[in-house]
């Protein structure tokens, strides 16, 4: 007896996809866009990190010598002091026990509200619940840009087609 009602993510958010981020095959990201323009950056189902057999060793929000996403602080209603992100701004680097390292990108322009610190202590929730508790970061696009923010992204349907093509070409 599973409920027919859509989940929290499905109820309040629209899913947008960016496949092969930075030209890296299958490194797909999924952006959950709330009707209030808040965006949650997550891993798409096909991302190599979510495939069988991958074990996450560590997650690092220190993306360069002098920039750590953990240092991001916002204050007040207007969220002053937020780090500004462009589409290709890195959010974190995730290294696996097999030596592979993956960089997760913002995919949208906006101001960084928070990164998910829970996945630092418990990386497995990133793999168990990539669309909810295993999110990467919360980004608030500029008000005037919020309408066009998803222009370069794929809808869920378009992404399914990409996955299908990918499957057919490997098969």
């Amino acid at each position, binding site marked *: 007896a599973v409920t027919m009602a859509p989940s*929290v993510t499905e109820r309040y958010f629209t899913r947008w996809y960016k496949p092969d981020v930075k030209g890296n095959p299958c490194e797909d990201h999924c952006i959950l866009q709330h009707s*209030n323009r808040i965006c949650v950056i997550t891993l798409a189902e096909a991302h190599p990190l979510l495939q069988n057999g991958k074990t996450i060793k560590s997650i690092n929000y220190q993306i360069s010598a002098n920039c750590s996403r953990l240092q991001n602080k916002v204050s007040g209603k207007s969220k002053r002091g937020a780090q500004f992100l462009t589409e290709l701004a890195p959010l974190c680097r995730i290294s696996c026990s097999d030596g592979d390292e993956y960089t997760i990108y913002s995919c949208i322009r906006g101001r960084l509200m928070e990164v998910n610190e829970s996945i630092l202590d418990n990386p497995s929730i990133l793999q168990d619940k990539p669309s*909810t508790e295993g*999110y990467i970061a*919360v980004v608030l696009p500029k008000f005037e840009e919020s309408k066009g923010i998803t222009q370069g992204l794929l809808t869920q349907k378009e992404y399914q087609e990409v996955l299908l093509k990918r499957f057919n070409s490997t098969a």
Partner: protein
Amino acid sequence: MFALTEKDRPLAQMLLDFGACPRCILRFCGAGLQTPYRCPHKELLSEVHTFLKNNKEEEGRCCETADPPYKRIRLQDPEVAEGLNQNGSLQSSLMESSENVACENSPPNVCSVCLGILQESCERDFVKKVCQKVNSAEYQFTSFVFSVSFPPQLSVREHAAWLLVKQEMGKQGLSPAKEDIVQLKEAYKWIIHPLLSEELSVPADGKVVDANFNFILQSVFTRMAVIKALEKIKEEDFRKHFPCPPTSPKTPCAALEIQCTNGAIFVAGRYNKYSRDLPQTPWIIDGERKLESSVEELISEPLVTVFKVDSFNFSSSGREDVDVRTLGNGRPFAVELVNPRRVHFATEEMKELQQTINNSTDKIKVRDLQLVTREAIGRMKEGEEEKTKTYSALVWTEKAIQKGDISFLDEMKELKLDQKTPLRVLHRRPLAVRPRVIHTMQSAYIDEHHFRLHLKTQAGTYIKEFVHGDFGRTKPNMGSLLGTTADILELDVESVDVDWPPALDN
């Protein structure tokens, strides 16, 4: 009863000579009693003339150029020479009237200081005009406040007159203080309050009538800018740029606008909300309405009609989401009704009004509807922060559950939460982690994936987020407590524990 004394004579003479009206003469002589100002203008004028005639006769000998006295001022003050032509006509007409005090039917010359504010604008005709405006608006009222806005250039004329007064008194070895002068607005109110009060048959204080005076042209400067400039400018500079004494205008200043407003009244009560498709306030996104009605409109629209108001402001002790019902005794609310025509309502009429609201819809219901004071509304907002609320939530679990899996919730008391600002409100609220307390929980098992949860919580706890976890941003949450994914399917507010407004037996 005449307010001027011997020592005021030279000053009064000077003021009369440059075209000040009798009441302005009283003001600048510092006459501080209200009664003399209330004398009819004509009477005052002749009294002033009589007073100063004696002056001329008695003191003529010590005045070298006593005939006519105003020439003396002209000669003494070469800086005003440029203004002479403008003043010329005034001087002659003034002379006529001073020579012929008996000529009482001609309208008085417009005062060069108050531009007629203390002349025509104090007369019965003007008062009648104001009262007509009030009466035509069909207000219910028991008192009034009269507020008046004078043109900013009056401050300039007042300043010019003040400089002359200072000069004149300086000659007598006196140094007057500005506070000794009766302010124009004060004198005006002394005169007009009793007249309005008589005409409206209610005492002053309470109801607002606004009169906005303007003289010929709208001033390009704000009142504050004029006052600040006058504070800064040096006396010599002022005299250079503005005729001192001020020239006399041909036409008096006229009331540009007379506005009436009634003080706001406040109606409070409690509401139930039975619909899951009804927002509390109009829900408009990008100028487009999402749902056709709202709690605030369903309650306020009948009030607007019956109290005949211009607008309203709805407030309440917290608010519920569009899909949340509010049951039990309901949520306290108050509506400010702006500029009401009707204000008197008997208890019985309030009951009928409540019935009207309740008959108009089945989406909400109102109780304890009553008139309250502005101050009392504060109690509703205080309660918002401190008091507890009880809720009923329908919870879904991903994992199949047995009765025994959820019974431990009933034992949990004062459960502390760390609640990050929910994502759904993060765009308009600061990001913070707020500690909140769930005082008690009670679970009622429904089936393998559903149970009903009754909660009593601290005000400000987000219940939906406590149940579904909000991406793990509320900790702990129902999912983490049960070791599964949990979701909330329905939420009802069962009580808002604020004991205001007082319950009525209806």
